[in-house]
């Protein structure tokens, strides 16, 4: 039985740092393990990759921890919203963690990711901190957008995360634009443009896909199909809900989005494809436990049995737990300890975020432009409140 020791000091460091310094002191920590994805991939105009995925004990443990952290963050956000500390929109990602984590495992920070408004966990995966997340959600100055963006507008350009977009479907042409720029700059990197089953019917998707295919852009369109566009089930919105086939002349792959290894394999495969052959579509078959947003109970258009069924059969974290246990990489208690520790990190981040002040009133007028030329801007009563834009 492999015993694991961890330096507790690491656990108090920001998420990404703690991860990299966590070492498994087993002799098998980087010994490859081969895992089979839960389902085979289905290809559209392409030969799908193999179901066998290489991983290591270290990676398995990282997956467990990362997803547990994302899960806990989203659940904590739920409570904060109900406590009215988060206002406006809050779209939660719990259930879909495998997509965020599997994708990161296959790519680098030089690859770009762009998504819609269900962006908290993608931001975390790109290297954002819990403090930046919770502060932004509560509209405080330590937020990743200094409190001026909110839940739907997280960004981290230095790690290749381009948002955080509120208009359904807009992120897809934007993502193809990122890919255009990567190709233009000869960067040998790719862009993953994430969208939901609701956005999959948007016209601008097909406009952008046409150009991406025409110009061989290194763009990977990833449909996170959680089967509901807000309250509308996929079969009520799409004549053809086989989203991986909707690219027609663009190849596609259907992936079990609740299986982090399937996601990792598909993303790795797509990156290689996109760099050589242009765009490809990935359909991640996934599920969100929460409703569309915090104002949606999520039960008027689907049954509680369906939700609990998915949780029992397909939960991404439970899958990893089973794998870790079956490979003897950790005990049940050790896994529970990781979850406790994650919960503690989240609670500490929330406490710290609550201490973060709201932005200064002068921030109302900052960042309207990069270069304001000394022009005037006005508040509601311009005789009372005006500012010069630097």
């Amino acid at each position, binding site marked *: 039985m492999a015993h694991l020791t961890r330096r507790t000091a690491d656990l108090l460091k920001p998420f990404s740092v703690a991860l990299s310094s966590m070492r498994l002191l087993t002799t098998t920590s980087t010994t490859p393990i081969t895992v089979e994805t839960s389902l085979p991939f289905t290809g559209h105009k392409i030969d799908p990759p193999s179901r066998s995925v290489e991983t290591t004990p270290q990676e398995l443990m990282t997956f467990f921890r990362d997803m547990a952290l994302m899960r806990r963050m989203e659940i904590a956000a739920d409570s904060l919203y109900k406590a009215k500390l988060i206002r406006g929109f809050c779209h939660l990602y719990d259930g879909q963690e495998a997509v965020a984590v599997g994708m990161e495992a296959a790519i680098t920070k030089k690859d770009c990711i*762009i998504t819609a408004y269900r962006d908290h966990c993608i931001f975390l995966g790109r290297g954002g901190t819990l403090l930046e997340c919770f502060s932004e959600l509560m509209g405080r100055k330590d937020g990743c957008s200094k409190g001026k963006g909110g839940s739907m507008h997280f960004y981290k*350009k230095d790690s290749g995360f381009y948002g955080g977009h509120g208009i359904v479907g807009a992120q897809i042409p934007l993502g193809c634009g*990122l890919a255009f720029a990567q190709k*233009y700059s000869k960067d040998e990197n790719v862009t993953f443009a994430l969208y939901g089953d609701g956005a999959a019917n948007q016209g601008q998707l097909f406009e952008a896909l046409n*150009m991406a295919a025409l110009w061989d852009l290194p763009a990977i369109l990833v449909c996170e199909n959680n089967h509901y566009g807000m309250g509308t089930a996929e079969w009520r919105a799409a004549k053809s809900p086989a989203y991986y086939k909707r690219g027609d002349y663009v190849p596609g792959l259907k992936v079990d989005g609740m299986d982090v290894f399937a996601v990792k394999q598909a993303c790795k495969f797509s990156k290689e494809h996109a760099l050589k052959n242009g765009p490809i579509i990935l359909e991640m078959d996934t599920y969100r436990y929460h409703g569309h947003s915090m104002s949606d109970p999520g039960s008027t258009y689907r049954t509680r049995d369906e939700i609990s069924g998915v949780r029992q059969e397909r939960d991404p974290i439970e899958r990893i737990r089973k794998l870790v246990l079956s490979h003897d990489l950790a005990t049940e208690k050790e896994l529970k300890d990781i979850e406790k520790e994650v919960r503690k990190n989240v609670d500490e981040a929330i406490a710290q975020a609550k201490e973060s002040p709201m932005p200064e009133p002068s921030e109302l007028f900052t*960042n309207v432009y990069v270069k304001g*030329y000394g022009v005037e801007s006005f508040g509601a009563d311009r005789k009372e409140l005006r500012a010069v834009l630097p």
Partner: protein
Amino acid sequence: MLRIAGNKLGARGFTSPFLKPAGLTLRSYSSSAKQMTVREALNSALDEEMSADHNVFLMGEEVGEYQGAYKVSKGLMQKFGPQRVVDTPITEAGFTGIGVGAAFYGLRPVVEFMTFNFAMQAMDHIINSAAKTNYMSSGNINVPIVFRGPNGAAAGVGAQHSQCYAAWYGSCPGLKVLVPYSSEDARGLLKAAIRDPDPVVFLENELLYGEAFPVSAEVFDSGFCIPIGKAKIEREGKHVTITSFSKMVGFSLKAAEILAKDGIDAEVINLRSIRPLDRTTINASVRKTNRLVTVEEGFPQHGVGAEICTSIVEDSFGYLDAPVERIAGADVPMPYAANLERMALPQVEDIVRAAKRACYRSLPAAATA
């Protein structure tokens, strides 16, 4: 006699000490004033900015092989290649989004709309993806993009091809909106727009492309830029201020000549920039003349003139000696028939009449019951 080696443009008495940009053809037959069409101005500006910065590229319908729907991008694809002069399919929402995404990454796209009427299909990307991103990201992601193309009425193109969008774009924080009139404006403002780190909406006018203007020698310099947000006083005057932009500047100048014969000395302001709006210059002018006529081609309600009028009321109310007069396009979709089209757009006589009213030289028009 000194001969400039390589000067193939024929005998000229005047030799410019400034470097001439490649690709610019000059029609200059006299030594005293160089002429440049607006089209040449835009073409040379694009050419130079693309030469100076590899990140600048042009995309739009027919910009490449067709040489530009209005020949503004003539020769550019031959010079820079299809990677940098990109012909797009007729999908404004898609290619505008792609342009904005490229700007997120750090390129400097110039997105051409064949007319701004078609840009309505891309409005979400111009406003929500481009204009607001620097603010929402608190400066993490800026969008150095230029959206350019013909705006407003052409001739006989009907209701769906004739709208002026200056007021719509001008109301959006996060955008800069420029409205060149002369060749000097076109060249200097386009260069400034391309160099600007923020999204710029650059509203040209199809009917001005072929018009030639005299330009001073400094306009030819590859570094020639006009500051964004500053209006230009095209004609100084004492009795009434006329604000205008784009094609209406020419009409206002003609109106000023006619008014001069009646002893009214009009000051004509070329706004050059709708956003930022140069309220300082406009207010200073009205404080001098005490009378104001605003002129624009677009629809009157919630138009540019309405904003200028309010600015005067807010900041210079005591200086007004007459109500502000507003000349704008007719409050109807643009008709096709030539006589109706003429009625739907401001004419020189409309500007003259309004200026006279502002100077109490004519009876006020009968109010509708």
